[in-house]
């Protein structure tokens, strides 16, 4: 009990500090710290799948994204500091946020006991999906449409980022060029970390069918390892106009959609799986989906093209 109270106070303290930090870099560090503590909270609430996703996407990759934003904004930071919103606007924002928090707290605390849930029905029917992890069953079988639409949303976000490129570098290499130092500390560490990371990613993907894990977390780890190798200078991002890159990005959702359409013929509805082949179909969807999401996330963090395609 004391542990939970302490953890909650710590989370709130870090959140307040992140909002009031005056310097963008300090705020990003605070945000990553907040994500890490939130992962601990999820474990404490016995939700390891959510903790995995929070640690990977909420803390790691989003932290990388915000750092990239900080680097881009650094030149304008002193100018922007002079244009902070006035006290009245900030007070209005604070009141609005407080009202939303109070509303959420009221909803959670006033739930009837036991809270209405579909978990027993998920558990009763999970044998037909061939999976052992109920979270993966919900993501890939019961609510597969949501997952398909999420991947499409990711692609649309990537298109939005690519559209920020100025005309002269349209279709070029995303992100700045990093020089690799072959004798350096970073190169050595990356050469050790990246293979281990890929191994862990594959493990999380494979174990996701029976234990906490799954393709989103695995894709995030793979993306983070690629970004690490790119930051160190071991690999360079391909120009975004390359056909193979675009095929890789679209392959996952396309296979997902195709199997969804085939569901009409096989089992009578969109994204319906015939029970004997359910696990095989889910696996066929998951493998290209993981690769596509990994590529999408990596390119999202890499940013809009900054260097012209012909070098």
């Amino acid at each position: 009990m004391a542990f939970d109270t302490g953890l909650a106070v710590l989370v709130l303290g870090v959140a307040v500090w992140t909002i009031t930090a005056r310097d963008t870099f300090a705020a990003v560090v605070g945000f990553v710290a907040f994500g890490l503590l939130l992962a601990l909270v999820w474990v404490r609430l016995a939700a390891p799948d959510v903790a995995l996703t929070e640690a990977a996407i909420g803390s790691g990759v989003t932290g990388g994204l915000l750092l990239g934003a900080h680097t881009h904004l650094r030149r304008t930071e002193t100018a922007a500091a002079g244009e902070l919103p006035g006290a009245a606007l900030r007070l209005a924002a604070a009141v609005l946020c407080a009202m939303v928090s109070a509303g959420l707290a009221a909803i959670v605390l006033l739930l009837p006991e036991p809270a209405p849930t579909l978990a027993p029905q998920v558990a009763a029917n999970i044998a037909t999906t061939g999976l052992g992890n109920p979270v993966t069953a919900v993501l890939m079988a019961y609510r597969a449409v949501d997952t398909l639409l999420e991947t499409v949303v990711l692609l649309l976000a990537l298109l939005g980022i690519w559209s920020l490129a100025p005309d002269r570098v349209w279709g070029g290499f995303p992100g700045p060029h990093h020089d690799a130092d072959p004798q350096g500390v970073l190169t050595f560490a990356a050469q050790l970390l990246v293979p281990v990371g890929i191994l862990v990613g594959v493990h999380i993907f494979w174990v996701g069918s029976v234990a906490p894990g799954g393709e989103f977390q695995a894709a995030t780890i793979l993306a983070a390892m690629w970004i690490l190798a790119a930051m160190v200078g071991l690999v360079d991002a391909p120009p975004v106009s390359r056909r193979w890159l675009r095929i890789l990005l679209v392959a996952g959702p396309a296979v997902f959609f195709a199997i969804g359409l085939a569901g009409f013929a096989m089992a009578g509805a969109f994204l319906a799986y015939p029970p004997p082949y359910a696990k095989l179909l889910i696996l066929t969807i998951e493998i290209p989906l993981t690769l596509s999401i990994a590529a999408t996330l990596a390119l999202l963090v890499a940013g809009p093209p900054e260097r012209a395609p012909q070098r």
Partner: protein
Amino acid sequence: MADFLLAAAGFVLAMVALGLVRILRGPGDADRIMAAQLLGTGGIAALLLLVEAMSVPAAVDVALILALLAAFVSVAFVKGAARTEADGA
């Protein structure tokens, strides 16, 4: 044993909270990155203790991911801070 491990996790988290003071005060970006590093390691330690205290063995994977991503984020921080120095900003 479970209570002891929970208490140990709480202690480590209290240390992490103290380390966060350094992020607040830190005169330079290096101090902030150091406090983030302590937070990462402390968080992993608290997580491992929690996993054993609550008997949720699957959550050790969370610690694995945290370790990998702590490395990734730290490298990103150092690269971000290094360019601060180079820009003279």
